[in-house]
């Protein structure tokens, strides 16, 4: 049997084996998008390239047959750089959003699409869990949030954004109204103690998630009542005390030791907390900068100086979040800070630290002209945008459902199942490396079960091959050539007719979401940022 080496590791393989298959036997995963067992190699994506050692020859491993004595390089920086370039080139011509824009616009990165789908299915109990995974104070924010998510909503330029914020409040208030509000699961006790100084939105949120992670939390608030700026910045009309109190009660129910009227006034107080607790979070709001210098914390222009991705101050095991470092910010920003700082503290306490997880990989198509929204609107509810004021004009369940159904579902159906996304993320590909003008967004929905998004197609040829092999009388074909090549149905006939037998096979083989099932919309929840 011929012997070859891949990255210096020798393997005997039968003649006729491809380099890709040989690597698989060695446990080396060479990425490939256009390769599928049983189909002819179309050698189109070229993400699977390897280099023949000692030469400048770069070959697609999926179609290169081994020769005795061949020495192949796969996991080297030079080969990875070429794979990354191939991925970045494909991404530069890949139209869509892996994750919906609202996810990125929301400072807390709440999984808004999931919440909306749950409301649509009348699963309010599931919806509150989705909300509180990222937002500790949804009833409050439902009234005071400045709604950045709605500004990013794809539907906004068409007939108004989905009423995300009002729907979130609807979910939260429905939950509170049950009398048995949602209580998250709490991890087994870690034996670690954390002091949170400041009972405003950032401190409350941090305490809430730290407890869930299994840590014992003591919350110190100088005022007699918790709430911080929530009690001073908003009128009773904007934020009724009744709502705030109910939400605080539900939040504290996870098990937070609260000390009100307990100001940390001096450097000595501060030092004592540091000695007593394993970690300390300063969330004392805009006034923090005044005290912080005296406590030995480095201060920047707007507040306490922290390492932005970990919320770590210059002192060991001391963190800061919310307006304590920003001076002035949206409430949702403070709530988001609290959550992220909590996960950062948790990481220090459990693993000794490390940076917060980065923003998940996503292709983002930016602004979409209203005339390109048609394909999205086909599936979405047709109700006009309706706002609720939290008072007399509250949503009924039916109204909430029809408002939630206005969601265009503009994140990608293949998220977490997409091979392009997976490898782009693994190889650190930058989707904007070649800042090219992108082609228009297009989505074809005439097929009963399948959606075709040509902009996501990477011309891998698999569906064409499968249709031909499956004996489709019409099938699919490449149309045009070069940069403009597209997969299309001959004679402009319907996709239904083109894929009368092998539609499911084509969807399964599609390496992206160019072809996807309508009925199987989303494969996964969106990641919690910072966890």
């Amino acid at each position, binding site marked *: 049997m011929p012997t070859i080496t891949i990255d210096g590791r020798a393997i005997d393989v039968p003649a006729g084996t491809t380099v890709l298959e040989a690597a698989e036997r060695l446990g080396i995963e060479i990425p490939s998008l256009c390769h599928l067992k049983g189909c002819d*190699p*179309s*050698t*189109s*994506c*070229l*993400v699977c*390239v390897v280099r023949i050692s000692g030469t*400048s020859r*770069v*070959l*697609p491993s999926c*179609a*290169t*047959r081994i020769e005795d004595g061949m020495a192949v390089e796969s996991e080297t920086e030079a080969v990875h*750089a*070429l794979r990354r*370039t*191939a991925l970045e*080139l*494909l991404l*530069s*011509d890949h139209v869509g959003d892996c994750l919906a824009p609202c996810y990125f616009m929301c400072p807390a990165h709440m999984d808004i699409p999931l919440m909306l789908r749950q409301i649509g299915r009348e699963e309010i109990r599931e919806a509150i869990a989705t909300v509180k995974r990222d937002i500790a104070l949804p009833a409050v924010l439902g009234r005071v949030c400045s709604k950045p998510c709605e500004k990013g909503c794809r539907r906004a330029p068409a007939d108004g954004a989905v009423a995300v914020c009002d729907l979130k409040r609807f979910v939260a208030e429905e939950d509170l109204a049950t009398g048995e509000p949602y209580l998250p699961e709490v991890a087994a006790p870690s034996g670690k103690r954390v002091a949170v100084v400041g009972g405003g939105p950032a401190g409350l949120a941090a305490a809430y998630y730290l407890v869930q992670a299994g840590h014992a939390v003591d919350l110190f608030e100088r005022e007699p009542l918790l709430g911080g700026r929530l009690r001073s910045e908003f009128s009773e009309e904007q934020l009724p005390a009744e709502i705030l109190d109910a939400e605080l009660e539900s939040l504290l129910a996870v098990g937070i030791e609260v000390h009100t009227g307990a100001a940390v006034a001096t450097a000595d107080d501060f030092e004592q907390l540091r000695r007593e607790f394993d970690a300390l979070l300063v969330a004392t709001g805009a006034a923090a900068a005044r005290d912080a210098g005296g406590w030995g914390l480095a201060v920047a222009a707007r507040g306490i100086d922290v390492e932005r991705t970990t919320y770590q101050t210059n002192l060991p095991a001391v963190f800061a979040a919310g307006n304590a470092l920003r001076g002035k910010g949206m409430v949702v920003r403070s709530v988001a800070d609290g959550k992220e700082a909590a996960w950062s503290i948790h990481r220090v306490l459990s693993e000794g630290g490390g940076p917060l997880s980065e923003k998940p990989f996503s292709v983002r198509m930016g602004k979409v002209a209203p005339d390109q929204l048609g394909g999205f609107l086909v599936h979405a509810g047709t109700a006009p945008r309706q706002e609720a004021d939290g008072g007399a004009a509250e949503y009924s369940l039916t109204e909430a459902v029809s408002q939630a159904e206005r969601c265009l579902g503009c994140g990608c159906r293949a998220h977490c199942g997409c091979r392009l996304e997976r490898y782009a993320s693994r190889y650190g590909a930058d989707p904007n490396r*070649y800042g*090219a003008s992108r082609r228009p967004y297009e989505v*074809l929905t005439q097929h009963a079960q399948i959606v075709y998004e*040509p902009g996501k197609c*990477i*011309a891998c040829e698999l569906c*064409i091959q499968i*249709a*031909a092999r499956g004996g489709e*009388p*019409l*099938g*699919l*074909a*490449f*149309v*045009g*050539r*070069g*940069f*403009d*090549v*597209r997969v*299309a*149905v*001959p*004679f*402009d006939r319907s*996709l239904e007719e083109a894929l009368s037998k092998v539609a499911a096979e084509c969807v399964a083989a599609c390496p992206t979401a160019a072809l996807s099932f309508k009925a199987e919309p989303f494969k996964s929840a969106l990641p919690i940022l910072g966890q």
Partner: protein
Amino acid sequence: MFDSSRTAIAEAAPTGGEVDLAFVDATIERLGRSADRVIPILQALQDHYRYLPRPALERVCASTEITPAAITSVSTFYSQFRHRPMGEHIISVCHGTACHVKGAPLVQAAFERQLGIADGDDTDAEGRFTVQKVACLGCCTLAPVVQIDEVTYGGLTSRRVAETLDDFLKHANGAAGQRPPARQQPVERPLGEIRIGLDSCCIAQGTGKVHAAVEQVLTEWGAPAAVKKVGCVVMCHQTPLLEIAPAAGKERLYARVREEDVMEIVLRHFRPKGLVRRARYAATRWLDRLLTDEREDPAASLRVDRRDGAICAFLGPQRHLATEGWGRVDPMDIDEHLAGGGFVALKRCLTELAPEAIIEAITASGLRGRGGAGFPTGEKWARAASAEGSPKYVICNGDEGDPGAFMNRMLLESFPYRIIEGLAIAALAVGAEEGYFYIRAEYPTAVERIAAALEECRRRGFLGENAFGSGRRLHISLKQGAGAFVCGEETALIASIEGRRGTPRLRPPFPSEKGLWGQPTVVNNVETLALAAWILRHGAAEFVTMGTKESKGTKVFALAGKVRRGGLIEVPMGVSLREIVDEIGGGMVPGRRFKAVQVGGPSGGCVPAALSDTPVDFEALTGAGAIMGSGGLVVLDDADCMVDIARYFLSFTQDQSCGKCTFCRIGTRRMLDILDRLCAGRGTQGDLESLESLAFSVGSASLCGLGRTAPNPVLSTLHHFRDEYQAHIEGRCPAGRCPALVRYRINEQCIGCTLCAQACPVGAIPFTPYARHEVIDEQCTRCDNCRAACPVGAVEIA
């Protein structure tokens, strides 16, 4: 599903009426029903309907083995096919390299402006003219060139566009006007012959009209001369060229002959028969001179001599192997070919030489493929000969598509029998009984002549079941390309013959193991085959006396661009680029500085003047950042912008990419994006580094030769002319070529003659008689008309 104008398959006939499908049925009957017939069938439909109506395509699918998917993918791949009706006349604007550097983009813009064609459209509102960009018409020495239907116009400028259209419409059947009726009766006992080159490019230069005039003079005056239509006359800069070859006596050459000169020339050598005619001739001459007040003898002033300084310099360094007999032989005269030693080599191969001996001779000659990569021909043949599998095939690759190259067209048009002989020899060497010519459809004359020559060979029994009575089968047939440069790549060419999209596949396996229909196949370039025939006739030893250590024999080049003498040249390997430019080409026009030679077209690179001592040798040219390529040599001067040249080539390869692999499909587009930015003055720091790094990736990881060599023009210009790139980032185009980076202004030398204002097509120069004119920059389209019109050189580019 898509509404792209190029690819959408048209619903109905242009008039909305029914498409007559009887033609489809007849075509299928004639061409066959198997899946591989798709391209010839589409070509027939396109010829007939002038586009591909959808009902016709559906009819084809219904009554042949061709599937809807196949007909869709094939008919949208090749640029010859159109899916929407076109105008009554087609204006094909050549965008070959030579045409590009001589202003083709301005010419195209001028046609579109003149015809009022909207942006993004290609046909005028009345449906009279369709303007299309073509890769290369192969008339590089006449640049810039357009073809309106069958009539070719050379040396155009945007100013001449209106008069060109007028001329075309005036002779609406212009093509017919160029084809003279031949005399019915051949001349008895001619006293000599008049040789006229009638290759495509000679015709474009007006030789057709001269030919008509010759025939007319001979008929009218009864002059005792035979007219001989010869092939390429190689001195494109001297055309129309007439050679007078008296039966006894010296040959005379007349250059740049006009219709009105013909009578004088012809009758000077072949005096009319009969007393009456001679008297009339004498009287006519006398009268003419009286009326035209002409002192000199016009015929004498046109006469050139093969020993003239310029002609000697042009021909001196050349050796004619592949082009042996240029300008003297009638391409279609098989007897003349036989008399000149044609088919001797083939006969020897059939009767005396074993396949091994043929391959040995080719190997000993050191012949390397002339298509570009320079692979040893003997080795290629040996591999196919020893490969398992039967039948085997040989293919002549006549899909020469490089802009700036027309050597193969010339060889096919001028020496069809020689190429057939070469291909037949290759077939014998590898053990094939079947061969194909694959010739691009843009070369109709080459297609016509090879088809006729093959027919003649079959008629005489040179080819067929019993070639030359040897008992051996030798069948050669002809396939036409349909407009795809990538089909010059051998695996793509094979896909195309098999009736598929011309997309290359990974090699190995090489065609010599698995080629046409999965069988061992040799694909050779036209020039390689011409030389193979020469080697077997004259011997390898003779061949190796020419050339360098690794590159033997000669190389044919199409010399064009900014040299004074362009033409088709054949030089021994080893001569330097400088010799070619200065001696053969006669250097630059006065006042211009030699800057670089573009060698090898879109796969090659620019060799700067400083490196022009580089010899013509495969390895040396690669070392200088270019490649031998198939043989385009475009000479550039200081008015040529190297960034623009790089962008030009990349836009060509980008347009011709088959679209299969990521690096070529998207990578070349992203490189082009950067070059577009640079030329538009929107480049930023870091662009050159991105461009270089992307060029490296595309060059190393693309699937086929097209992609792998596409970055060469960029890399070589970046290497040798980086300062020009840097200047573009700073908003300057040193050569003054990039429209976005230049401004036209009129200096104080202006005499107020208003010619520039009259020439401006967009009214950007207000009429100010007797005063200095001014260009309104916002309206200026940089068409260059004003500068060409100014009699005192007052219009300058800043």
